[in-house]
């Protein structure tokens, strides 16, 4: 197998692995792609609410930093309880009652609007801890180590996007960025996927998989990012996903079979490439084709 034949012209190519439905195989695919790429890869676990790619990558950790985000802090001496901040806040994170402004920091999206609109200059930023960023390296293949980054949201925190942005913004020199994205189609998924060069939507051939795939397709189309579908556990379920893709002109880039060996490897935290070595070449070829999309676009 040739391992050095992916040579993207763009300096960095970002591939997001998303799904809609949870548990379809995003992490399985993202970690396997990182191994099959054959070029230096940065794998970023953007599913900060439940990061699990590290279980498969088992990196040697080399840095760990605390992350914070700004929330409003009211100077009660200056506050006149005019209510401008509460009125502006789209997230209902501020109320003005009993002559004072009250902040519900856990609802704040850190937009900074309240601080700007306050006519008294009574609002300042207070940094609150939201989680951690961890970096490490996997040396399984010494010639193409995997640079690994993950975010881990602190218990009790509900705002994933600021931490996801931090995971994405760490600079890396590797040519290929693979993002293991959160499930769903709400803010965390959009934050993770936004700005990518290509999205792979992993699904399963079930009515649940299809329902959420349709939502994910709509989302990715809104974001105007080219995408393709990968069907996991392909020989289970029904034909709904395939007919949907056919009638909507959506490329099915790969089908991962439903095999006991794959499930067993997953349960041990072993790679898909180890459980089904025949898939490694297919993954490599798929990656090659996807990265060509950008070159020809």
């Amino acid at each position, binding site marked *: 197998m040739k391992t050095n034949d992916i040579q993207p012209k763009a300096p960095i190519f970002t591939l997001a692995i998303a799904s809609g439905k949870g548990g379809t195989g995003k992490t399985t695919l993202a970690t396997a792609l990182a191994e099959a790429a054959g070029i230096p890869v940065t794998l970023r676990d953007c599913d900060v609410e439940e990061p699990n790619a590290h279980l498969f990558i088992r990196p040697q950790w080399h840095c760990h930093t605390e992350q914070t985000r700004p929330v409003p802090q009211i100077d009660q001496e200056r506050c006149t309880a005019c209510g401008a901040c509460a009125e502006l806040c789209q997230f209902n994170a501020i*109320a003005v009652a*009993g002559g004072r402004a009250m902040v519900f920091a856990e*609802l704040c999206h850190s937009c900074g609007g309240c601080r700007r609109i306050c006519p008294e200059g009574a609002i300042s930023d207070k940094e609150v801890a939201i989680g951690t960023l961890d970096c490490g390296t996997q040396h399984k293949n010494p010639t193409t180590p995997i640079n690994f980054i993950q975010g881990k949201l602190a218990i009790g925190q509900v705002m994933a996007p600021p931490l996801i942005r931090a995971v994405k913004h760490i600079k890396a020199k590797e040519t290929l960025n693979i993002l293991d994205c959160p499930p769903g189609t709400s803010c965390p998924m959009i934050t993770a996927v936004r700005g990518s060069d290509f999205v792979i939507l992993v699904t399963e051939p079930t009515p649940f998989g299809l329902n959420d795939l349709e939502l994910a397709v709509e989302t990715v189309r809104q974001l105007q990012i080219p995408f393709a579908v990968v069907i996991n556990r392909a020989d289970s379920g029904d034909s709904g996903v395939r007919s949907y893709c056919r009638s909507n002109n959506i490329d099915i880039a790969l089908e991962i079979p439903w095999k006991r060996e794959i499930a067993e490897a997953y349960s041990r935290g072993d790679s898909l490439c180890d459980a089904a070595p025949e898939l490694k070449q297919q993954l490599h070829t798929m990656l090659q084709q996807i990265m060509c999309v950008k070159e020809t676009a």
Partner: protein
Amino acid sequence: MNVAFSATGTDLDSDLDQRFGRAKQFIIVNTDTDAASILENTQNMNAAQGAGIQAAQNVVNAGATAVVTGNCGPKAFQVLQAAGVKIYHTKLSSVGAALKAFLAGELEEASSANAEAHWS
């Protein structure tokens, strides 16, 4: 005094909405004049988050000094309490029955929220 009742409809025969933050609307009764007015809450019914906080803010801004509802969570409770609004929980099914019980002094003022927060 102005008393806000969480309601599913617009008159006293309406069901008392058991939800505070996501109540359909509030019927605000002035117990001195018997006049009633409607405070819309549709926006909070569909809010992604913070419905209780915003509903409490609106009730406070509307000048209510008491709230009668089924359930009230901790954040709404905190806002109402800061504004000095008294909170009464009841399982009575209609706004009319709740108003009668309130006027008869049969409702007990709540000292804490009786529903869990939805966030954190």
